[in-house]
């Protein structure tokens, strides 16, 4: 197996050829903030929080989809990156209606935690306050589009792990939204198996079990990666 050596934050790191900068950094114990990345499913590079600086490349690179290369010099913590990461989080907060105080995911939300971690004590841009809907037509689960950041974790989880591809993204720009099947209410979907993996995958309070109230929605995301690993390594006999 081909191995490349590179430098991340002045630390020499070795990686398998083809491995992403994000994976190599994690293996070396260097934490890069992420939001749309989910262990066990493919990368979307949608959130841009994992942006890093690569010497010799003019543009910032999303670590999750940037392949490691021999001699690469990567920086993950600079003032520029910190400013962009905070800006990305602020824009996510303005684009939807994120009211932590009354959210099912309060205290268990990756968006909320990252905002605090990145020093976001207020948002400098005007809130858009879009009119978005809540779909409670499913008998067990619900989707609150106000809290959706379009990371597409649910879309990828449903497609790649469950194999149902109930979820997808419809619309363009600020009108983009997650749809079930051809845009019907979730409860009317003929492909949804009600497995709940999308609910486990959601980083915010957008997907939740019905009946959960403020701060009650906890998740076990490792289960999804465990499932993928177990399948790949044939840990079950059928």
């Amino acid at each position, binding site marked *: 197996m081909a191995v490349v050596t590179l430098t991340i934050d002045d630390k020499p790191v070795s990686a398998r050829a083809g491995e992403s900068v994000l994976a190599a950094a994690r293996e070396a114990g260097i934490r890069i903030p992420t939001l749309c990345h989910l262990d066990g499913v493919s990368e979307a590079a949608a959130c841009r929080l994992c942006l890093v600086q690569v010497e010799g490349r003019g543009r910032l690179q999303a670590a999750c989809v940037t392949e490691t290369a021999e001699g690469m010099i990567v920086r993950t913590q600079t003032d520029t990156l910190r400013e962009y990461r905070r800006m990305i989080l602020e824009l996510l907060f303005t684009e939807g209606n994120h009211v*932590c105080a009354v959210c099912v995911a309060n205290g268990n939300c990756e968006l909320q935690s990252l905002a605090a971690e990145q020093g976001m004590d*207020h948002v400098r841009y005007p*809130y858009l*306050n*879009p009119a978005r809907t809540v779909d409670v037509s499913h008998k067990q689960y619900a989707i609150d589009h106000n809290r959706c950041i379009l990371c597409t974790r649910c879309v990828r989880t449903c497609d790649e792990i469950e194999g149902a591809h109930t979820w997808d993204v419809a619309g363009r720009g600020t009108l983009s939204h997650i749809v079930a099947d051809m845009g019907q209410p979730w409860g009317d979907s003929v492909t949804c198996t009600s497995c709940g993996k999308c609910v486990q995958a959601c980083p915010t309070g957008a997907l939740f079990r019905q009946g959960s109230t403020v701060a009650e929605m906890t998740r076990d995301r490792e289960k999804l990666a465990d499932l993928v690993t177990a399948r790949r390594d044939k840990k079950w006999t059928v």
Partner: protein
Amino acid sequence: MDRVKLATVWLGGCSGCHMSFLDMDEWLIDLAPKIDLVYSPLADAKEYPDGVDVALVEGAVANEENRHMAKVIRRRSKVVVSFGDCAVSGNVTAMRNPLGKSLEVLRTSYLLESAGTNTRLPDDREIVPALLDKVLPLHDEIPVDHYLPGCPPPAARIKAIVEDLLAARTPVRSADQIRFG
């Protein structure tokens, strides 16, 4: 040493931040000799005075009175702190924004069937200040010096920033001190 002139203000919020302020419990006794509480819903001053050193402002800017008050606070205070999530982000107070402008909000609240019987728009402008079309965080109306998120900010978080400001230190706060919600 001169006492620090402290003001606390209640704009478009639920007063939960002020309840959390009172939750500082016995530390309020330590605080009392260091400050003059010159204006507050917890005190009896009718006019917001000149020369306030530190103002903790709870609530979003939701109506004409809030907007007027915000400007008065800025003019008459050295340091203005956005006190709690409503002041910082609009929070629950701003949840009406997606419903539309003020008239649509009033119609939804007072005229729809769900509003019950005897439906009527509140119209006494002498008593009820006019709603703004969009609820704004405090810093969209006036420049703000420090932000104290939380719904409400826990008492320990309030104490930390008040201590910093009394000692004329710039508050530097870790992730667990600025978490929303």
